[in-house]
C-alpha cells in the first residue's frame, strides 16, 4: 500500500532578501550600527538557548506567520542603548518597548518588499533565559544571523504565502 507523503515545507526564497535589507537599514538608520548579515540556515531546534531577549511580530493577510529578532542580554542592552540614546536596565519597561520597536521596524520595513499584502501585529517581547518560542510546525523557520560592533543577534523568519493569494 503506498502512502502519500507531503514534501517538507520550504521557505520562499523571495522572503530572505527583504529581511536582510530591512535589518541593515533599521540598525543603520535608527541605531547608527553597521550590521553584517551571515549565511541563513533553517532552524531545527525551537529552543533559543543563546538568546535572552526577543521581539516577535505576527503577520496576517496574504502572508502569515511570525518574525522574531533574538539577542543575548548583552547585545540587546548595547543595541537598545544605541537606538534609544539612553542606557536601560533589562527590567525597565522602556527596554522591552525599544526591543519591540526594533522588531516592528524590521518586520514593517521588509513587508513592503514581500510581494504580497499583509498586516503586522503590535510587537510582543520575551525576556528571560531558556525560553522556547513555538512557531507554526508547518512553516519552516529561517534564521538570519547578524553581527554588529555592539553584539550579535538573529532575525528568525517563519512566514508563508497563503495558497490562492
Amino acid at each position, binding site marked *: 500500500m503506498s502512502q502519500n507523503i507531503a514534501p517538507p515545507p520550504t521557505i520562499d526564497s523571495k522572503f530572505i532578501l527583504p529581511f536582510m535589507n530591512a535589518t541593515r537599514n533599521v540598525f543603520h538608520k535608527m541605531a547608527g550600527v553597521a550590521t553584517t548579515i551571515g549565511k541563513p540556515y533553517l532552524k531545527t531546534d525551537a529552543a533559543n538557548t543563546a538568546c535572552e531577549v526577543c521581539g516577535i511580530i505576527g503577520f496576517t493577510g496574504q502572508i502569515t506567520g511570525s518574525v522574531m529578532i533574538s539577542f543575548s542580554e548583552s547585545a540587546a542592552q548595547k543595541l537598545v542603548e544605541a*537606538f534609544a*540614546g539612553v542606557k536601560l536596565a533589562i527590567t525597565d519597561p522602556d527596554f522591552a518597548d525599544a526591543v519591540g*520597536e526594533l522588531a516592528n*521596524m524590521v518586520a*514593517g520595513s521588509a513587508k513592503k518588499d514581500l510581494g504580497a*499584502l499583509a498586516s503586522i501585529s503590535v510587537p510582543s517581547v520575551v525576556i528571560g533565559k531558556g525560553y522556547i518560542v513555538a512557531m507554526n510546525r508547518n512553516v519552516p523557520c529561517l534564521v538570519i544571523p547578524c553581527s554588529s560592533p555592539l553584539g550579535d543577534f538573529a532575525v528568525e523568519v517563519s512566514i508563508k504565502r497563503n495558497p490562492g493569494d
Partner: protein
Amino acid sequence: MKFLLIDDSRTMRNIQKKVLSAIPGTEFAEANDGLEALCVIAATPGGFDLMIVDWNMPIMDGLTMVKKVRETDKKTLMIMATTEAEKSRVLDAIRAGVNNYVVKPFTPEGLLEKVNQTLAKAKAAA
C-alpha cells in the same frame, strides 16, 4: 510651537522629541494611541501646530485618528511616521488628510527635514 507625538512606543516618541527639539521654541505633548490623542487634543486649548502620527497602534490606529481629526479640523498639520511604506498605504494616508509622510526607519536628519518641509509649505500657503 506645539507638537503632539502619537506613537505606542515611548522609545520612538523620545527619539522624535530629541530630534525635533532642534527646532527653536518647541513644546511637546504625547499620546500612546489614537484615542488618547483625541483626548489630548480635546483637552489642549488652542490645539497643536503639528502632529506626528504612527499608523499601527492598539485601541485606535493612526489612520482612523487622522480621519476623525479631519472631520472638524482641516488645518492642523499632520505627518504620518510609520513602517507602512506600500504606495497604497501612502495614498490612503494622503486621502485621509495627512500633510506629509515619513517611513520608519528614518535618520534624525530625515525626520527633521520632513517636519521643516511641512512647516515651510504651510507657511508659504498661508
